[in-house]
């Protein structure tokens, strides 16, 4: 943790905030007008998000389905083109890069997807799969590439006997290891992990989480860890951002967020997780209603329809994300 603190200080001096700095990022999906659709519909999947990630840090991003967390992860990597805003990676605005420069930039920025069954081509062997990024960027000779694959495979805990096997011969956990190996082969600095353990059983989930943490330390990686599972995010992150309907409602250091959540939504989210303990205290807050449609988000604070602390102001005025302490930001009128 102190390491992260030092980096923060250094960056304050240089004016740069972290390896990745996102400013006012928006991604809107528009359904065009048509005969059946007289009005243009706009889904504000990611609506004006600003945050930074320091080098060597894991930022957890949590929220319910449809809140835009995956879209944010993709927009940061330009896998889906953002509508507006800026994404500075090591000081370079990657949204302004041309196709070729962006392609080179991708070596440093990788992604791990949720479903290890869908993200591996079933007709390619492990060797071909993991080597593919090296092939794409034409790095090294055939032999060097294979050696590199064997090294990486060992790093993620798979034996080199597996080189000629196909994905279907592996279990879910092993496949996720292959996906991680492929993401690591170009020595990236920054990895977006989009629900990497959600499809795995609990006993396998803990193996993969431990592996990711160990790799992060050994290779000095920076993670954006997207998940709906607050317990998993708590385990792996340094800081956590909570998203609701395309907005960040709270962002704080892990410790303070989990011990003393501020935003009513974060509080409700925390108390709705069933704790595997028979003597766990009764949950306190149960939200009524459901997440409103992002096609037609509520006016004012987007959470006001489900919030038990809602005041008049919440219905009309949207709260801004403001600092309430050194490292905690929250978007709620209660804390202004």
């Amino acid at each position, binding site marked *: 943790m102190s390491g992260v603190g030092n980096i923060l200080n250094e960056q304050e001096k240089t004016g740069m905030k972290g390896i990745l700095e996102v400013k006012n990022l928006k991604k809107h999906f528009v359904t065009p007008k048509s005969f059946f659709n007289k009005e243009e519909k706009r889904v504000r999947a990611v609506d004006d998000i600003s945050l930074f990630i320091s080098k060597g840090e894991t930022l957890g991003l949590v929220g319910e389905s449809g809140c835009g967390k995956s879209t944010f992860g993709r927009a940061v990597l330009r896998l889906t083109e953002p509508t507006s805003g800026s994404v500075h990676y090591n000081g370079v605005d990657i949204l302004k890069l041309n196709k070729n420069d962006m392609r080179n930039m991708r070596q440093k920025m990788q992604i791990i997807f949720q479903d290890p069954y869908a993200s591996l081509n079933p007709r390619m062997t492990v060797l071909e799969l993991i080597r593919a990024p090296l092939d794409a960027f034409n790095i090294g000779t055939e032999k060097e590439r294979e050696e590199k694959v064997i090294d990486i495979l060992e790093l993620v805990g798979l034996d080199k006997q597996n080189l000629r096997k196909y994905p279907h011969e592996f279990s879910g*956990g092993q496949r996720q290891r292959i996906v991680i190996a492929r993401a690591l082969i170009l020595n990236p600095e920054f990895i977006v992990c989009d629900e990497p353990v959600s499809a795995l*059983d*609990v*006993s396998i989930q803990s193996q993969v*989480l431990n592996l990711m943490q160990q790799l992060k330390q050994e290779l000095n990686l920076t993670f954006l860890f997207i998940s709906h599972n607050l317990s998993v995010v708590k385990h792996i992150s340094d800081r956590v951002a909570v998203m609701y309907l395309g907005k960040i409602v709270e962002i704080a250091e892990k410790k303070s967020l989990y011990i003393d959540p501020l935003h009513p939504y974060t509080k409700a989210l925390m108390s709705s997780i*069933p704790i*595997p303990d*028979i003597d766990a205290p009764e949950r306190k807050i149960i939200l009524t209603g*459901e997440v409103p449609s992002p096609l037609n988000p509520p006016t004012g604070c987007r959470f006001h329809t489900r919030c038990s602390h809602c005041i008049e102001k919440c219905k009309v005025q949207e709260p801004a994300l403001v600092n309430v302490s050194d490292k905690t930001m929250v978007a709620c009128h209660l804390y202004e």
Partner: protein
Amino acid sequence: MANTLLEVNNLQVQFSTIDSTVTAVDGVSFSVNKGETLGVVGESGCGKSVTSMAILRLLGKTGKITQGEILFEGQDILKKSESDMCQIRGKEIAMIFQDSMTGLNPVMTIGKQLIGTITVHEKMNKKTAEKKAIDMLKKVGIPSPEQRMNEYPHQLSGGMRQRVMIAMALSCNPSLLIADEPTTALDVTIQAQIIELMKDLKKTSEAAIIIITHDLGVVAEMADRIMVMYSGQVVEYADARSIFINPLHPYTRGLLSSIPRLDKDVDVLYAIKGSVPSLQNVPKGCRFCERCQDAMEICKNKPPVLCTVGDCSVRCWKYTK
């Protein structure tokens, strides 16, 4: 025991594939008392869903119950005719499935489906059935139920659909409700709502519940007794308190300590090494032996039997005398 509602003895279910036979459930025995909630926990492929499908005899063409008996209110379900089964399914034993989108008919309104279930099992005219359906929807907390009756499943959200499924399952006052991963497909805030609803229903109705899940948090909130399954077998069967306070089987203990928890901090998670063995190639000794940190010589060669320790049953050589 007059209080026992369901008793499953030595159940074995096999699925035949082209080149082999897989034993998905192997010698599972348990019982459910009236009004009790039994939690069945295990990882994917451990046979927890197959067990519940066997109780309803819904195994399809490839699955066969090759051994054992299932006594429901003292009568063997396996000896019933298909038409008797139709009377039991939905009326006596109801089921809630994980995926509410595939559990409901997409081309029928909610009302039609609910009324259909009620009129099949109970002698009621359409008017009274409709009234009852609306009552049920009210009971599970659906706002403006009269209007919802005329809507199709796709017009409802996931949480609402799951409520409809619960309403449908409870509409004929079943004495046993089987819920197969009822909250897995839902978001946490909605999951909390559904769990709360099921807890309320547990208090108000007399139905016994079998809740099948991989989430130990969910069973901690709901279950009176818990059965932990691994690779088609019961490895531990005890009341909920002792499973969480004093788990006996190394697998149960591993499972509990490998979950990242909100209320505790650890630097490195406990990980059970390896993965679940394939059912086509089960180990000769204890099925958990290769992953077990307490494995002894005997574990590799001889399968342990379920033995009783206090009030718990556990399948492990450590506790066999």
